[in-house]
């Protein structure tokens, strides 16, 4: 799958590309509006990551161009500005999501996956690995065709690890993902352990071999081929 990263900070765009490469995404980088517009005209992408403040203009121009060319790429805005006005403007122009800097790459990856799922497979989508099946439409989980009853948080956690599979996901990223805006108020990640313990127990009971591994108290990693 092809992703276009429109971002003038090379260090950042390279990080994103490196992280996403592990997921078999092909990333192209455009550092300014002009390059971005040329790329969009010439190629089709599955998802576009768009920084709004670019050296040669406003990134919203790119959104406008996409709309005019009736392209259906999923667009995620990554911006340092996070006022409600900025968000509304971006989303009104057809962006699918809005992520404020600084963000966790694992969060970005999860959002990209969600956008692609929504755009690509309009019907139901099932993510599968090692006998585990996640139906993202119905938000249900099956292990070897047997439904597993997970809480909302446990499901979110599983999906998050799944979309970032084979990579270490930091506990900060998990905490932020699970508690949304409320995360900023707490500094203790113990609640993740509780969710993780329950999730693992349920999956194990359903007969799934445990593929989720804690990495030195740094984070977690789901290892599936």
């Amino acid at each position, binding site marked *: 799958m092809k992703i276009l990263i429109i971002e003038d*900070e090379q*260090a*950042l765009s390279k*990080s*994103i590309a*490196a*992280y996403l490469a*592990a997921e078999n995404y092909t990333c192209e980088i455009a550092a300014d509006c002009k390059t971005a517009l040329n790329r969009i005209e010439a190629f089709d992408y599955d998802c576009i990551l768009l920084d709004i403040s670019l050296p040669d203009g406003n990134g919203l121009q790119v959104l406008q161009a996409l709309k005019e060319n009736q392209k259906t790429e999923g667009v995620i805005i*990554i911006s*340092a*500005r*996070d*006022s*409600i006005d900025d968000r509304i403007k971006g989303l009104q122009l057809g962006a699918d999501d809005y992520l*404020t*800097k*600084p*963000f*966790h*790459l*694992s969060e970005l990856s999860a959002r990209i996956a969600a956008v692609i799922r929504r755009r690509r497979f309009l019907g139901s989508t099932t993510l599968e690995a090692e006998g585990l099946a996640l139906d993202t439409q119905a938000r249900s989980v099956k292990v070897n065709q047997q439904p597993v009853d997970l809480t909302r948080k446990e499901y979110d956690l599983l999906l998050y690890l799944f979309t970032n599979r084979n*990579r*270490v996901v*930091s506990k*900060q*990223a998990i905490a932020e993902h699970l*508690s949304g*805006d*409320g995360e*900023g*108020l*707490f*500094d*203790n990640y*113990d*609640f993740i352990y*509780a*969710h993780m313990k329950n999730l693992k127990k349920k999956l194990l009971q359903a007969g799934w071999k445990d593929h989720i591994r804690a*990495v*030195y*108290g*740094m*984070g977690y990693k789901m290892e599936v081929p």
Partner: protein
Amino acid sequence: MKLLNKTVQYYFLLSVVLLLVAVPVFYVVLKRIVIANVDARLIATKTQLIPRLQVLEVPPPKGSPLFNNDISLERAVPHGGRDSLYTSDMVDSLSRHRGTYRLLTSHIVINQETYRLQIKSSLANHEALITSIIILQVLLLIFLLAGLLLINRSLARKVWNPFYKTLRKLRSYKVDDTEPLQLERSGVNEFAELNTAVEQLADRSRKAYVAQKEFAENASHEMRTPLAIFQGKLELLMQTSPLTEEQAALITDLAAASQRMARLNKGLILLTRIQNGQFPETEPVSLQKMAIHLLEQYQPQIEQKEIVLEQYWEQDIVINSNPTLIEVLLGNLLANAIRHNLKGGNMIVRMTDHTFTVQNTGQFYALNPDRLFRRFSKSSADAESMGLGLEIVKKICDLYGFEVSYSYDHPLHTFRILIKS
């Protein structure tokens, strides 16, 4: 003391001194004039009388048309002295009234006999006149003084009016007001100058404030991209292999630090936004619903710390406000009560028709209420509490006219928001 009273005080002092000095001086001068006048008349009478008496051979008897009640002639021992003029109190032979008289005594020789001639003139009438004049003068001066005071007072009030107007405006002026300071034009040069100077001063401080605000805002925003790079590289570092436990521990600490920076950044931007009034959208928000929703969200943390939570919802408060800000406000208070609580501690949340109170156990001494709501004045050992939370609470309360207060009643720390609708 008012400037007005100060000037009046000096006028008054001067007037009193003048009155005290002028009235006696006036009295003395007037009396001298009167006495000089009387003396002149006595001498005139004497000069008129003497030639007539000297031609007589015997002194005229009493009751002679030459004499009246004021003139007496008596035989006396020879006397070479000069005439004498003096003032004396004596009883009038006719009216039997005691009075002050001016007397002229002269010795004349009639037919080789020495006689003493005494002419007197009553001063009573003159003294009455002087007294009336003095009383009149005092009254006049007093009326003049009172009139001056009154006129001065009303005039001063009128003249100083622009000054008081400026003062009122200055008092209500805040540097973060959206409107610049506008003072009325004054026709009086001094006030016009004062107003211009004050306006310039206000303008300068306003510009400095705006610049500082913009700096905080820009700095916060500019910090976000490097932060994003830092966080991204850290995540890539996590993926490297082989990764030792030692390296992982270092990366974890870095991740925690970058998380803290990100939060701090978010908090600063939120504060700036509140100060900039960038949350204009309002809608009716139910505080009870919001608080219950937040408590549900924090349930994992509450369970984690085994906190015993008591909730008393006496009456819901619905207030027209920005839901995001109310969520931040209540969220900060509730999260603080959880974060700074003891393991197995207590937390009491109470809502009445005009207050929202959060109480919690925690450290066993009161926090410093002066520093509590100020930026970065954290008092807990919890290194990751960012010290912006309560300032944000205060700013949101200020925005909506709520009053937030803190008290400590062993062992409970209490934060109370008073909501006046």
